[in-house]
């Protein structure tokens, strides 16, 4: 069971969290301006990274806040936890 560091509550067991998938997928600000293919990309075609990936998690059984986690999808090691709105960290950091 993973242990995640909620930015507001501290380290907690995975069971308290909800997984939200890849982070930094922006909703097209003008949906009508994008093609069906581009809209399909936004909806379904994500990177599914093997390795370090930025993800959204929510402390749903705690403070109910969403935040970002940079996690390795192979080792499951957590590299960084950062708040919404903060930029994706340089992964070499």
């Amino acid at each position, binding site marked *: *069971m*993973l242990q995640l560091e909620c930015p507001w509550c501290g380290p907690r067991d*995975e*069971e308290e969290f*909800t*997984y939200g*998938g*890849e982070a930094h997928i922006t909703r097209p600000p003008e949906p009508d301006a994008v093609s*069906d*293919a581009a*809209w*399909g*990309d936004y*909806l*379904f*075609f*994500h*990177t*599914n*990274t*093997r390795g370090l*990936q930025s*993800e959204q998690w929510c402390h749903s059984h705690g403070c109910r806040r969403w935040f970002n986690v940079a*996690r390795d*999808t*192979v*080792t*499951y090691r957590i590299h960084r936890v950062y708040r919404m709105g903060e930029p994706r960290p340089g992964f070499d950091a």
Partner: protein
Amino acid sequence: MNRYSILSLVRNALSHHENWQQAWRSPEPKPRYDAIVVGGGGHGLATAYYLAKNHGLTNVAVLEKGWLGGGNTGRNTTIVRSNYLWDEAAWLYDKSLRLWEGLTRDINYNVMFSQRGVFNLAHTLQDVRDTWRRVNANRLNGIDAEFVTPEQIKAMVPAINTSPDARYPILGASLQRRAGVARHDGVAWGLARAADARGVDIIQNCEVTGIRREDGRVTGVETSRGFIAAPKVGVVVAGHASVLADMAGFRLPVTSHPLQALVSEPVKPVLDSVIMSNQVHGYVSQSDKGELVIGAGIDAYQGYGQRGSFPVVEHTLAAIKELFPIFSRMRMLRQWGGIVDVTPDACPILGKTPVDGLYFNCGWGTGGFKATPGSGWAFAHTIAHDAPHELNAPFSLDRFVTGHLIDEHGAAGVAH
């Protein structure tokens, strides 16, 4: 290929089994093939087998980065059924089921396909409605399906808990009698042997590291054993599909997740069919060795680690204990995980890609094993004709753009 039979067994017994042939060769890769199948799991091997058998394409290599059947083929709970809701899915899976029914004889290798029946339990009134909907659709599609009452279930599965006082009492189930289980390793090995006998080169320990393209066409693959040229490349690598797609410069609508399973210590026969429950969330059958083979849903997070989190195991065993209170004192012998590639509509992607000559077969999620021969059959057709068969045409990448999804988890019974 020496045929396997009781006679060959006796004959070889007389020579102390010293003269058995290799089940398949281990040739060095040739510089060039007519087609390459990337991935030596059940689907990849079936693809190669049907390329050779149905389409006369024998200058074919199967490239496997590890050992044959070492991915989800060797890690799944071996359920085979075809009682899917939507026509497109039902037809594809039933094609597969029909192939299963003749596979042992076809490839002269006992894959131990055991048609012991699969029950999909209904625990709520909406489950019952969905179950009837699926049963009716299956019957009109020519797929055997019955709705069975709790009393009928109890008569066929005496160990099950049909108490109306259960937290989520069993209100009925669909039963597909032609469904069942098979021997997962045997499927990979038998297909490898049959493909090899038709001239296919099966190359283990050969990892694909790049997909070479020219002018939007595939020309071959870079591997840990050098470049291998081919005008057609079919990729069937389950959880690693996105990694291979990335090599070819496009993305897939799949996410890779851990899927866990476990077995108990072996006991005398106590469960003769396969029981699946979405609401209570677990499924169980008993192997010929006597082990209870148990699985449940995927871990929520993405992962390529072939391992998941313990709470999933806890919930699964709570579900199994709820369905079968007498299993409580049985013990978990071993648990493990695989990597499954999940699509938004719980249906596979099987067809052409933005790169000419490059074909992808992925997105089977938690239920790929049952499709092994059908998937290979349809994929072989697609590779051979550079066009999908009508059975797999609906399972195109394009559907995620047009919105023509085949939403199997919307309605019912999709998990596994």
